[in-house]
């Protein structure tokens, strides 16, 4: 079943098209990767889906219903959560409060405080955040801040979560843990749409990958097909080989 569908999604800033005519869909239970060079419009696409920016034209549909033009809080309450590339935690609030507030404000708002507290504890455990819950969020390590962002996103009770560069800046053992986390999120029945630059991760975790370049979708398919696609190698993967060499 199609969970999320984008039709000719377009966003222009001034005369520049950051995202242009992108058609895409995410099926329920999938893990879909979104890759592309810097400035390709990946985060802009996430911002359009989550309502942070209004679309210039085109539309988005979630579970068959149009969500174009809704505010971010309304989209969250429809069941789409997100994390941020540049971490946006409530850094002076405690780890526990960050997640608790999301439990009380998202799609599950109206649940009892005690249920929300229990859910918070469960989620902190789920993402593998083993620090004291009363620690201010700003004092966590980068890896833990990213875990907390995921926990906060999940706390809103989403059916789809948008993960924006969850693994950027992490060391290789942390990347492995993050990959496990993404798989376990799917096992909870939550669909994942993720932007990632760590190729090892994206190739092994994703069912399907979309490639953006200059705001246009240039390829889409299973990881194996993408890794041998000429166009993708030219604009993205090739560049990386070059840089590594």
């Amino acid at each position, binding site marked *: 079943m199609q969970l999320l569908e984008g039709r000719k999604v377009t966003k222009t800033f001034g005369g520049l098209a950051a995202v242009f005519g992108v058609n895409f869909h995410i099926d329920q239970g999938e893990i879909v990767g979104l890759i592309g060079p810097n400035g390709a419009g990946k985060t802009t696409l996430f911002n359009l889906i989550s309502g942070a920016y209004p679309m210039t034209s085109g539309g988005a549909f979630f579970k068959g219903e149009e969500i174009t033009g809704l505010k971010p*809080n309304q989209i969250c309450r429809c069941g789409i959560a997100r994390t941020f590339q540049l971490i946006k935690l409530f*850094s002076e609030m405690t780890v526990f*409060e960050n997640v608790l*507030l999301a439990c009380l404000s998202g799609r599950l708002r109206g649940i009892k*405080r005690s249920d929300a507290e229990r859910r918070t504890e469960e989620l902190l455990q789920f993402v593998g955040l083993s620090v004291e819950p009363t620690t201010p969020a700003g004092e966590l390590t980068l890896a833990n801040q990213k875990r907390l962002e995921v926990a906060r996103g999940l706390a809103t009770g989403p059916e789809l979560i948008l993960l924006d560069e969850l693994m950027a800046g992490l060391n290789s053992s942390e990347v492995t843990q993050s990959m496990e986390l993404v798989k376990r999120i799917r096992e909870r029945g939550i669909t994942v749409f993720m932007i990632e630059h760590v190729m090892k991760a994206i190739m092994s975790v994703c069912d399907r990958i979309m490639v953006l370049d200059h705001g246009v979708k240039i390829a889409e398919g299973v990881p194996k097909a993408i890794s041998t696609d000429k166009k993708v190698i030219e604009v993205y993967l090739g560049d990386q080989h070059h840089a590594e060499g």
Partner: protein
Amino acid sequence: MDRARTLPVYISSYVFSCLVFLLLATIPLYVNPYLVILLTSVFMYIVLTLSWAIFSGPTRYISLASSAFFGVGVYSSAVLGEVLPIPAVIFLGGIVGSLLAFCIGILTLRLRGMYFIIFTFGVSELMRHFLLWWETNMKGTVGRFVVSMEPETVYYFMLVIFAVCLIVAHLLKESRFGLSLRSIGEHEEAALHIGINVTLLKTLTFALSAFFMSAAGAIMATRWTYIDPSIAFNPLFSFMPVLMAIFGGIGRLSGPIVGAAIFAMLEEILITRFPYYYMLIFGVILILVILFLPSGLVGLIKRKSRRSS
């Protein structure tokens, strides 16, 4: 589990607050009239500062519209004082202030940072000049008389407004709305993305905080007997709450209360002892506080107690 441990602390602080209020309620029985009048103006500043902190503390939107709401309360009292009993006047004054804040909120709470500060200050000034223009050109006389009240009566009403304001501020802080307001102050965009209706929450809280400012204005007007736009909408009522809250410390409710109380007393002492230098001394003290006590007086006490424990 955390709550159970802090419960005795809660109860003892409730008992303490009740005792303090009991003491304050009986004060007019055994002190001289001057002190009652002084305490009334101290409580007026506490109400202004505390209600300012209800909104601006957690959200970090620095509002300079306090004098607009205070002045609206003052004028409500002047207009309604002759036809309605004083509790109704205070309540209606508060409602009018809230409605004004609601409208301002819808218009301006999309602005951030400096733009918000300047706009709210502009609103206060606009109110003052508009009323002045109205009275000069439409009514022909500037200023109004207000039905006056006994100093003790004014004191008691101000004390009740303070008590209600404190209870509301406390309940709000402990609720999930208090947490939501803090999240707006820390990262508004993230707050929006976890499902918080940021605009609505900000507007309602702004209106709530204006209620108390206007209520304080409505009762205070009865002590002044004569008011005009420059008295009612004095820009000092916008700046003082900000300074007092910073002086006391914004993070917890005791900060604005302590800050306003000490500041108001200090002002009274300086103005009577050093009428020519009081603003100068005032300014120096303020600069020192901001330089050396960034989290205010209450922050200093907290730091001291942490060090000794």
